[in-house]
């Protein structure tokens, strides 16, 4: 069955907004409710919108399984390498060595009720980003796998 062009156009227009919202949730994960998994799930819902609006054979041209698997592995590798990086300076696994450093994401959080500063958190925003990339890849792979179970009716 073919979706109408209204559905397809709406999906096309909505997709970038969903992406932006998802990345917003991921990037602000260390300041507001949300984070890697939640933002990644929102991103994956954008992918799901595309998958539903187009036919399975068409949408798999856009959302390829190999690409999503690569995204998944890349996100996970980024996460583990971020965790392992602390070992280079002799600290424990997962030690947040970026946090008060003054580099990227290195500002010191002022105590009490302040306006949120995005440039804090050290490794946590990086790990949030890694988890976000991983989750969008993983959920897309799951969706593709589950969708492939449906017999297509034309």
């Amino acid at each position, binding site marked *: 069955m073919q979706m109408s062009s209204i559905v397809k156009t709406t999906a096309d227009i909505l997709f970038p907004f969903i992406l932006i919202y998802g990345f917003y949730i991921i990037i602000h994960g260390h300041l507001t409710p949300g984070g890697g998994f939640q933002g990644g799930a929102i991103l994956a819902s954008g992918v799901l919108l595309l998958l539903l609006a187009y036919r399975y054979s068409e949408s798999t041209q856009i959302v390829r399984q190999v690409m999503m698997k*690569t995204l998944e*592995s890349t996100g*996970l590798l980024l996460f*583990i390498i971020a965790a392992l990086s602390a*070992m280079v300076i002799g600290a*424990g*696994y997962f030690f*947040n060595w970026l946090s008060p450093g003054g580099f990227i994401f290195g500002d010191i959080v002022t105590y009490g009720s302040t306006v949120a500063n995005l440039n804090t958190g050290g490794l946590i925003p990086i790990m949030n980003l890694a988890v976000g990339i991983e989750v969008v890849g993983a959920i897309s792979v799951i969706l593709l796998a589950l969708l492939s179970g449906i017999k297509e009716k034309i």
Partner: protein
Amino acid sequence: MSQYAALLLAIPLLAAFAMPLTGLIGKRIRNSWAIIAMLATVTAALLLVWEVLTQGTIVYAFGAFDSAQAIPFDSGGVPIRILFVIDAMSAFMILTAAIMMFAATLYSISSESEQTGQDGYYALLFLLMAGIFGMVSTGDLFNFFVFLEINSLAGAALAAYRIKGGVAVEGGLKYAFISTVAGLFFLIAVGMLYGQYNSLNIAYIASVIDFTGLSLVAVVLMIVSLAMKSGSVPMHFWTPDTYSSAPSSITALLIVSSMASLYAIFRIAFSLFGLTMNVVTIGWVIIILGILSMFIGVSMALPQKDVKRLMAYHSVSQIGYMLVGLGVGVAVLGDAQMLAQFGVVAMEGGIFHIINYALYKGLLFLIAGAVIYRCGTANLNDLGGLGHSMKWTMGFFIIAALAIAGIPPFNGFASKLMIYESVFIFNPFIAVIAMVVSIMTLASFVKVFHSMFMGPKLPQYETVKEVPMPMLIGMGLLAVLIILFGLFPDLVVNTLVEPAALALLDRSGYIASVMGGI
């Protein structure tokens, strides 16, 4: 500070996550990556075990600059970080898992070489190992639950990996469903403990525990859930289904994962609750589960026709020995005189049996896999006469079968002897059942030996050859270890098993290693 505890977890995870990417480059690169990562993990595990045996319990704090900061100064004396507490018992389990990982990965390189989707296979294999290593070394209840779920999900996915017309998926589905339900009830029990003691750390909870009615519910939920995960009767029904349909190298690893669940039962019984609970009742519950497992497992194994299903029932039966050995230890925990007289020996027997069981049962499943790899069937009615063409495999089978039946001088005899003699003082009836079960084990392996290897060469297996070299190396390593453990049981008991048993008994030492001598 020593990083081996973290590397033990980090290397398998890194290997698993990079596996799909290396698979995109090429098959050869993926296989070498798998072998390199496996060797690195095993090396880290062996170094960690060596460190624990020479320096005592290791506490590793995740996310801290130094593990001396296991309890942050501003936390009010509560360990809020995720801690790995690796004492001699954990080290023992890590060693068992590392040996099996070495053999099973090497075996997989050959046995899976013709199959598709190997990227996912090795990625899941390393995730499974990360889950097992995490389960046996963590000192945090919720963290344990997370590793339990990683382990069950990876194990179920691997068990279902070769679909085999849906049968393997059925086995995987049963395993996944059952372990998820068990995991959820374990989580609810963890929540009950957290609500009362405001911490997830095993050592902290143990130091403040006050056994209430809610803790009683929690301990029952935890022990029954973990007993189901380790496959004890009467929650064993998934074991033959999953073990028989999974690929053989995976079955060898699923055994280690059931051992990790078994470890958790005793960690909870000895270190978490200890004498605060009614040890006699809980001990007897574990012993009854053990007796049922021993007897029903072996009596179901005798009439089986599928070789892997038969061996799976034997694994149920062997788990009974460990439950009985350590259950006697729990039951006499409150009586110092009985503990010294036979309780410690029973526990040592049970713990020694864990590694012996993992070795010979893993070897048996690998042999079954080798036979299936060459002949394509696991049905004992169709097999026969393989002794003419698969001489090495037959030799390994003889060693493993004699070991599982408890025939001297192999390793199964040493641990079973320790269990028999100590349990006989506790209750002669149990020891008699254990011996009868041992005889029936021998009987059913005589059946397997006869119908697989004996007899004239059958026409349909005229072209069968010996299995490739990596599979033989994986099996040979286990066989050599079985013989060595059988010839020098005293050495193993003194260096590995006795510290493990004493570490389980030393509840205040476990608490002090984290809480700093409170």
